[in-house]
């Protein structure tokens, strides 16, 4: 597969502009939903620009880091991010990410994609059945969560009031986060979505707290494996530059939108993205299993 780029008749300038535009979209959607934008960046690069999957994954990691730092600067200032929850769970995500980056290429990627896809499909169903309340019904958190001081509060401009919340099911959340880190290290995708689901569905944090805290976390998870990708030469400057610049511009839009948007709407957006990613990942997994041999 090396040596030539399939079906790319683009001029360097058009490529740069097209990838920047995809970056803006990825950054805006990513900062709203707490995801990294690989969902938009990878297909744009591989399908429309004919970029090799290895470079596309490297670019996706850059997109994740740019989304995270760009959006989290605002979300931390606005006190939307639950710093304790983030740091506690990062212990699991970074460990998983390092293990994943080391095992990448050794484990059957197609099978893993299939498993990830099925988990996402289940999460889609669970999200579909939930009502997307503005805030989760008030409840007492688990004793472990209380002992770890994982409760939080933030001001929601869309509701015009302070939202206080507790979380539950800490061990399950921690395990899911390790899996999220592993997947991001192995496949370079799905980690943000996984984190949002783990906090929102499993641990029962409010959606806005889940997406902004995920946003804050994904940069650290990605940074844990980005060093490996960078050293391996998977991050091509000609691709990474428009991705980073576009995404950073996009986060300016996304963070403004989140402030004004109702959780109900973000919930719908999340559901759509979940379904699309689940289908994409499952299809990729099946194609990989049927195709047998991998390029590298």
């Amino acid at each position, binding site marked *: 597969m090396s040596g*030539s780029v399939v079906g790319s008749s683009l001029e360097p300038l058009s490529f740069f502009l097209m990838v920047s535009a995809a970056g803006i979209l990825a950054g805006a959607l990513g900062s709203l939903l707490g995801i990294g934008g690989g969902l938009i960046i990878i297909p744009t690069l591989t399908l429309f620009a004919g970029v090799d999957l290895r470079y596309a994954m490297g670019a996706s990691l850059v997109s994740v880091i740019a989304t995270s730092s760009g959006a989290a600067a605002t979300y931390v200032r606005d*006190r939307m991010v639950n710093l304790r929850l983030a740091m506690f769970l990062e212990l699991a995500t970074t460990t998983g990410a390092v293990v994943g*980056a080391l095992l990448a290429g050794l484990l059957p990627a197609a099978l893993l994609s299939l498993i990830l896809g099925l988990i996402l499909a289940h999460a889609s169903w669970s999200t579909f059945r939930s009502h997307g309340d503005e805030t989760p019904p008030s409840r007492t958190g688990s004793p472990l969560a209380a002992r770890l001081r994982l409760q939080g509060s933030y001001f929601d401009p869309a509701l015009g009031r302070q939202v206080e919340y507790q979380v539950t099911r800490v061990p399950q959340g921690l395990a899911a986060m390790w899996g999220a880190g592993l997947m991001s290290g192995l496949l370079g995708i799905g980690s943000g979505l996984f984190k949002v689901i783990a906090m929102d569905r499993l641990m029962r944090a409010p959606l806005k707290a889940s997406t902004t805290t995920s946003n804050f976390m994904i940069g650290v998870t990605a940074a844990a494996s980005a060093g490996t990708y960078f050293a391996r030469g998977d991050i091509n400057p000609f691709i990474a530059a428009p991705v*980073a*610049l576009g995404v950073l511009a996009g986060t300016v839009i996304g963070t403004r939108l989140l402030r004004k948007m109702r959780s109900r709407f973000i919930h719908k957006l999340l559901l759509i993205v979940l379904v699309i990613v689940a289908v994409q990942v499952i299809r990729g997994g099946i194609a990989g299993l049927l195709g047998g041999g991998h390029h590298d």
Partner: protein
Amino acid sequence: MTERDSAITSGRMELLVSYVLRIGVLLGTAIIVAGVVQMARTGQTGYASVLPYGLGALLAFVPPGSPGHFPTAPGEILRAAVAGKPYAIIALGILVLIATPALRVALSIGFFIAERDRFYVVITLLVLAVLVAGFLLGAG
């Protein structure tokens, strides 16, 4: 220290974390833009010409010395960036972006010290250790 004092201190730390993220992002952006401008101005990547080869060659996986080549070792990147090679400047900006979240974790230690929360100081140190291990394993 009262609860209120602690809330004010941690509020300041949150602002600090937010500033560090913003500075990292702005610095990274500025460096990448400088690299892109330099590339557009000279028509060179610093390792090859952009135009004669076209996009395909720039994006293909190729051994060092061919049109798609770019530096990956931090030391080489720094030297070549100072020398004004566009690809190295862009790579330096990307490195700044990658380093920002790690720096943010380091700063969070200050946040939890201000909150007098030893448990989270330890957690944060552990996260930082894993990050450093990740970088070292990647470089090795």
